[in-house]
């Protein structure tokens, strides 16, 4: 398996964050989803419990109020009189019936009131409806039960009351047997409560599409069921056998206790109305709850996804916010490789990165300062070298000249003496030339002419010189003391020891790009070895030349020439300098190439 390598910081950040968050979100989601399910389930169950308890207490209260009515009627003086009189008068019967009738009108949830004497005479609440002659009151089991337990109120299951002809009313009857003095069997008081009230109360508990309640009596028979016909036809079934086992359990528990039982996806919640002994069963569908869960789950997943996306985006942003400045810093650093000291400047990022950038900037600034300082030092050194080189005027020449002047003085050659002394003075004036590096070609030529004047006087008739300087170039700027060493070389190594008259030709010309100064002699020239040695010498480091030709020593061949070459190069760069041409016996030509500089050009 190929391992995914997380090379960059960004990838590591992103993947680590993402994984961590994903795991924590999923875990959190699962946990909170479970909790939510539990909560919803509990809420639902709690809700059902509350509803069921309410229904039970409503039924209790309801039946209680009917029982109160029943007791009131039983204690009523008219009722008492009616029962206690062996043969009640029609007047009494009428009055009692009126009272019952009033009670009926006062409570529209009561559909009938009946008081039956042990002898079979009876009073029915509604005088307008004759009792059906075929109706047998005593065939009902709850009547028998009431008669067997005088004083106790017996509550019937829901049934169709058929006492009145052509009227079939769904009722729940509260029956109590009333003891009558001097009678073997008790009298009977029955109050019929309309069953619709119980139905209405129960139907309020129909929750959701699948939830519904039903009521069982003490024997476990149906008092109410919303689809009883389907149940009796076997189209629907309730687990009655199981539910019946809860009836005694609930009866033994304190009032208000509830029992719960889950079968398949049906949850049965049972509560007992202690007053009636009925068991109220609330059926709710777990499946329906599951449907709600499913919705919740999708919502949870969506929320999780959204949170994850947001966090993913943030972590990506965070990772980039860390790595982006690093990348930028990296780019800036790379520029140093190319020699540019670019500063990072203000990089947006964390304090660490900003600090790093700042430190880097300090470092680069310092380096750049050092480099600049170094360059300046080099420049200074070069300048001092130049100065030193310029100062290197052969002292022998001075001694010799002075000796010549002394000699001339002794000899009384005043004219020559003046001429030489003034030439020497001019020579030095130009050499110094206010410390300037560059002087006009005219002055340089003047300088060399002064020199030649002195040498000409010293080496009488040994050589002649020619100047070929176009006036247009006279104002060109040249490095001072360029020509003199070349002429010196031409004299000492070219024409001095010649047995024929030597000529030194000094010329200047403009070759279009640069200024060419040429010193040509017709002296003995150099053999190729000498020329090569001199040519190689030209490029030898200055310091070595320096050491080779200290002030005191006699200038070795080419020292001055080399000096010129090095100076030109130091000042103008590598493209300039000297070139030599020579052949043995034919003389030497030294050519200095300088940049063309106008008058205005100054260092």
């Amino acid at each position, binding site marked *: 398996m190929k391992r995914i390598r997380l090379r960059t910081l960004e990838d590591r950040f992103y993947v680590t964050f993402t994984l961590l968050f994903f795991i924590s979100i999923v875990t959190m989601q699962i946990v909170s989803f479970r909790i939510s399910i539990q909560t919803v389930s509990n809420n639902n169950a709690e809700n059902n419990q509350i509803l069921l308890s309410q229904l039970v207490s409503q039924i209790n209260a309801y039946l209680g109020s009917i029982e109160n009515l029943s007791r009131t009627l039983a204690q009523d003086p008219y009722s008492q009189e009616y029962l206690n009189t062996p043969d009640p008068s029609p007047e009494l019967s009428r009055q009692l019936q009126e009272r019952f009738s009033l009670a009926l009108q006062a409570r529209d949830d009561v559909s009938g009131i009946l008081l039956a004497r042990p002898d079979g005479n009876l009073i029915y609440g509604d005088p307008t409806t004759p009792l059906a002659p075929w109706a047998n009151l005593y065939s009902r089991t709850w009547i028998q039960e009431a008669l067997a337990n005088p004083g106790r109120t017996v509550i019937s299951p829901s049934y169709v009351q058929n006492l009145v002809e052509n009227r079939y009313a769904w009722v729940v009857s509260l029956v109590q047997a009333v003891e009558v003095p001097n009678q073997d069997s008790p009298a009977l008081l029955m109050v019929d409560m309309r069953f619709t009230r119980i139905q209405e109360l129960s139907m309020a508990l129909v929750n959701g599409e699948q939830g519904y309640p039903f009521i069982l009596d003490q024997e476990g028979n*149906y008092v109410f069921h919303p689809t009883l016909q389907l149940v009796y036809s076997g189209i629907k079934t309730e687990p009655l056998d199981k539910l019946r086992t809860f009836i005694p359990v609930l009866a033994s528990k304190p009032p208000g206790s509830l029992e719960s039982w889950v079968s398949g996806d049906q949850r049965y919640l049972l509560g007992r109305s202690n007053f009636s002994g009925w068991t109220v069963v609330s059926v709710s569908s777990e499946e329906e709850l599951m449907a709600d869960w*499913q919705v919740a789950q999708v919502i949870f997943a969506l929320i999780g996804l959204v949170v994850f996306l947001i966090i993913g985006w943030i972590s990506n942003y965070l990772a980039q916010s860390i790595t982006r400045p690093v990348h930028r810093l990296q780019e800036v650093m790379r520029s140093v490789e190319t020699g540019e000291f670019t500063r990072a400047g203000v990089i947006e990022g964390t304090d660490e990165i900003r600090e790093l950038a700042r430190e880097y900037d300090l470092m680069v600034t310092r380096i750049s300062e050092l480099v600049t300082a170094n360059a300046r030092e080099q420049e200074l050194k070069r300048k001092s070298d130049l100065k030193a080189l310029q100062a290197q005027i052969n002292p022998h020449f001075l001694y010799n000249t002075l000796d010549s002047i002394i000699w001339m003085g002794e000899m009384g050659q005043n004219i020559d003496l003046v001429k030489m002394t003034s030439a020497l003075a001019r020579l030095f004036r130009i050499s110094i030339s206010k410390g300037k590096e560059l002087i006009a070609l005219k002055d340089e030529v003047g300088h060399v002419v002064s020199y030649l004047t002195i040498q000409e006087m010293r080496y009488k008739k040994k050589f002649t010189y020619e100047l070929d300087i176009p006036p247009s170039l006279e104002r060109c700027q040249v490095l001072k003391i360029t020509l003199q060493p070349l002429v010196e070389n031409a004299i000492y190594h070219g024409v001095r020891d010649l047995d024929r008259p030597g000529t030194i030709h000094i010329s200047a010309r403009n070759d279009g790009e640069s200024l060419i100064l040429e010193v040509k002699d017709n002296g003995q020239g150099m053999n190729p070895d000498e020329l090569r040695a001199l040519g190689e010498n030209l490029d030898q480091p200055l310091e070595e030349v320096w050491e080779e030709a200290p002030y005191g020593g006699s200038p070795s061949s080419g020292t001055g020439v080399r000096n010129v070459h090095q100076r030109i190069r130091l000042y103008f760069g590598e493209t300039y300098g000297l070139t030599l041409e020579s052949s043995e016996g034919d003389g030497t030509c030294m050519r200095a190439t300088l940049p063309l500089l106008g008058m205005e050009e100054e260092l």
Partner: protein
Amino acid sequence: MGFISLLATLVLFWTLTIVIRPEREEVLNIGNPVIVVMKALAQPMDFWTVVGQGMEEASREFGVPILLTGPNREKEIDLQLRIFDSVLNQDPPLIILVASDYFRLEEPVGLANQKGIPIITMDSDVNSDVPLTFVGTDNVEAGKRGGYHMAELLAARGNPHGRVGIVSHNQETATGIDRETGVRTALAEEGVEIAGTWFAEVDQERAYQITLDLLADPSITGIIALNEVTTLGIAQAIREQNAQDRISAVGFDNAPQILTYLEQEILQATVVQQPYNMGYLAVRAAYYHLRGKEIPNQINTGSILITRENMFEREYQELLFPFAEMDE
């Protein structure tokens, strides 16, 4: 990198949703409601009201929207034909039809079949193979139930062979035809002599008159009426003639008045249908069909023989007295 992890996340969340998804029956998703074309729209507290209650219960339980339509009263065949026509244009997913005429609804039902609208017949069938199923009382069986009980009654009165007149409500209605067949089959089986069948054309007065004529014949020992109206007619005549001691009478249906006659022993028994179950099972069958389940081609909603003895048993009370209060 970011894209891949995002994709992986989506897939993970998706699988998570799938994995925890609980198994649940799909909710039926139909655009239009199932239309029920009734023979007659419910009058307060009658047979059709109870059918409607059963339908509503099933509609609620299975989540099938239903829409009831039809003529206001029975025997308005032309009106029902027009209503059926307009219902076809509403493009319902299914039609539950209570045919007011066994033969005349045949062609419209064929038309519905051409349009691809499934039909379920309820209570009263149509002379057609098109309907998916017939949901209703097996009237032959119901007739037999009445016939056998009549035989028992006659035997109890010491005249097992007797002579029984049948008062039918209609010669063309399937219920009338089937019930008569059932009664005749049962009586023939038990060796009871059948005096004949008289048709009252869904008219109580006619049934009453027929019964008076029958009562004039001293050989008649039993009368069977085949629907509510005829039952009321024969009971009325028997009570007026005070003939209950000599005539055994068995009727059909459970109008409060019929039940009172039962209590008064003018009628000895009545065969009742189960309208609540009928409505419930018809809508349930529609639901099953729309869900793609197989349904049997006949769904018998059953009939019950009610006598004075069992009429107040808890089991039958809801059936006989479907409403909180029944005043005549």
